[in-house]
């Protein structure tokens, strides 16, 4: 029932996720340990003589799971930044919402040190 698709597709998705992750840092994504490991693993386990190889399916499943993990973490962080990342409004902004403005007090409030 597991609709995994082709291994090439999973590998492409994984490399894309790695690229997004390393886009912000200066380094290229090809230097990361994850890239080297993934490419080596996909190459090594590509060919097997058995027709219905459960181990190959297992490895592909693990790769697909990791891809899902990377993708969903990225989307989760993006959603968090967009909707929940703003924090509280400052006092000036809150006053501005209802059309009020805080008074200018160049000397500071009386009770502050």
């Amino acid at each position, binding site marked *: *029932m*597991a*609709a*995994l698709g082709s291994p090439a597709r999973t590998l492409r998705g994984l490399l894309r996720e*790695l690229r997004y*992750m*390393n886009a*912000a*840092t200066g380094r290229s994504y090809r230097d*990361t*340990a*994850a890239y080297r*490991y993934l490419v080596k*693993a996909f190459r*090594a386990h590509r060919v097997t*003589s058995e027709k219905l190889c459960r181990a190959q*399916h*297992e490895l592909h*499943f*693990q790769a*697909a*799971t*990791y891809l*899902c*993990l990377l*993708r*969903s*973490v990225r*989307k*989760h*962080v993006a*959603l*968090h930044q*967009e*909707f*929940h990342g703003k924090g509280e409004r400052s006092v000036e902004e809150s006053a501005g919402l209802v059309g009020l403005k805080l008074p200018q007090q160049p000397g500071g409030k009386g009770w502050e040190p």
Partner: protein
Amino acid sequence: MWRRCLCLRDRWRRLLNQPSGGPTAIVRTGANIPSLSRAYAPPAERKRFYQNVSITQGEGGFEINLDHRKLKTPQAKLFTVPSEALAIAVATEWDCQQDTIKFYTMHLTTLCNTSLDNPTQRNKDQLIRAAVKFLDTDTIWYGVEIGSSTSIMGPNIPDRTREVLVSHLASYSMWALQGIEFVVSQLKSMVLTLGLIDLRLTVEQAVLLSRLEEEYQIQKWGNVEWAHDYELQELRARTAAGALFVHLCSESTTIRHKLLQD
């Protein structure tokens, strides 16, 4: 009277575990002096303090190095994992943090820390029992003698099924069981977790089945991105991390090279 004051002061000092002596008291190195922060304040955000993340192999397994320092668990144990793929995945998690470290996105690291520290001190039986408890409230019927029920109390799980399940779960290692229990508590279903471990369901399918009711309501009433999608992605992330953790902790890789024979 001043003697009594001195006596009280010494007793107070002993309660606070401070050395008696004036301002020239010895500074204890490495002691945990409780700070005066609020009890419910969230932990201060840590900035990314390292440049490079790398992996080395030690005696117990694979270790993560942040620059030159070795990564440690919250209880200050050395962070070792048995599998290289897991170590690389954890290193990637640490590597993709920018500016501030968002611990809530580092699911694999959290799972490894829980397995290494075991802060709630649970043994295998307690973990298995906690996971099997979800069988009673499982809303997905898999057709293996679980039975279905239309009342609110849920089906009566025959003891035979429970025994089989318990003995099956007991065959996993402690680390794998932590992962299984984590996935079960995320998906709220034992059947779905077993399907995921057995490679029958992908993570997306399992999460979809777990949220069946919500998906139906979304199709009927519409999707709210900042709530539905947010929860969906978070659930997917946690479930994927748990499933990957279980697989990587309970596998062993052997490569046999066969020569082509003409």
